[in-house]
């Protein structure tokens, strides 16, 4: 398969999935670029043990989680650096604003709050919830992408929902 064809048939999948993780256009573009550079690099070594789309999903999820971790590291470093410097770098590494083009204006505020809570979930819970509730994947598909059993996925989604509801309730209580 030609790389350009592969890009054209998967670009929206990668871009949208990255958007669900970072909720920001610029960051999602950066992740999409990284994903396709990785795909190009390892396309020859791709053994068709899993479906191509499953493989691309996995790369996108890993790149998105790595991107978030790297940003958090930079922010931590910024806090440390700001102790010794007058010009605070911390501001530079602040989490970018919520800029999700797939969110309608009337839902923006509610979804921003919801994503704030989703971002506090563990990596696995977050991934399971995004794939299930936003990407509308079946439990079997999620299990294949995450390389887990159906039961484990079910449990992850359930725990994610419980923890989200708990957080939302406590915020509403305040």
């Amino acid at each position, binding site marked *: 398969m030609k790389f350009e064809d592969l890009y054209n048939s998967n*670009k929206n999948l990668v871009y949208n999935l990255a958007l669900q993780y970072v909720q920001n256009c610029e960051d999602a573009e950066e992740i999409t670029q990284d994903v396709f550079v990785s795909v190009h690099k390892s396309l020859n070594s791709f053994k068709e043990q899993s479906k191509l789309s499953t493989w691309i999903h996995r790369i996108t999820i890993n790149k998105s989680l790595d991107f978030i971790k790297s940003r958090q590291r930079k922010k931590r470093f910024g806090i440390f650096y700001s102790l010794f410097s007058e010009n605070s770098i911390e501001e530079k590494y602040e989490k970018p604003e919520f800029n999700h083009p797939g969110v309608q204006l009337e839902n923006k505020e509610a979804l921003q709050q919801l994503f704030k809570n989703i971002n506090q979930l563990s990596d696995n819970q977050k991934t399971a919830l995004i794939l299930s509730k936003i990407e509308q994947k079946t439990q079997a598909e999620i299990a294949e992408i995450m390389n887990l059993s159906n039961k484990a996925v079910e449990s992850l989604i359930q725990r994610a929902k419980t923890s989200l509801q708990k957080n939302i309730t406590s915020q509403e209580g305040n």
Partner: protein
Amino acid sequence: MDSKNKKISLDLLSQIQKVDAPPFLFTRIKQKIEHTYPTKFSLKSTWSIGLSFILVLILNFMAINKRIHQTKSDNNLVKTFNLMPDKSLYK
């Protein structure tokens, strides 16, 4: 918050619409790929560089060989005419 409201909150996630990836991304990806991998030499240029290197080695070898022969003939000349090889004239 009652259970109905909670459900609505999570249901909001399914209302997120799919968007198209920006059109300029592929150009950027191609640039990144070219930047990531070092430029590969063509077979022709690889052969030219290899042959030039071998040619330089052969020329060096020939030059060293010639110099050894010349030194030997110089020594023979010195011996034949009984010349003093060193520069100390007043021995």
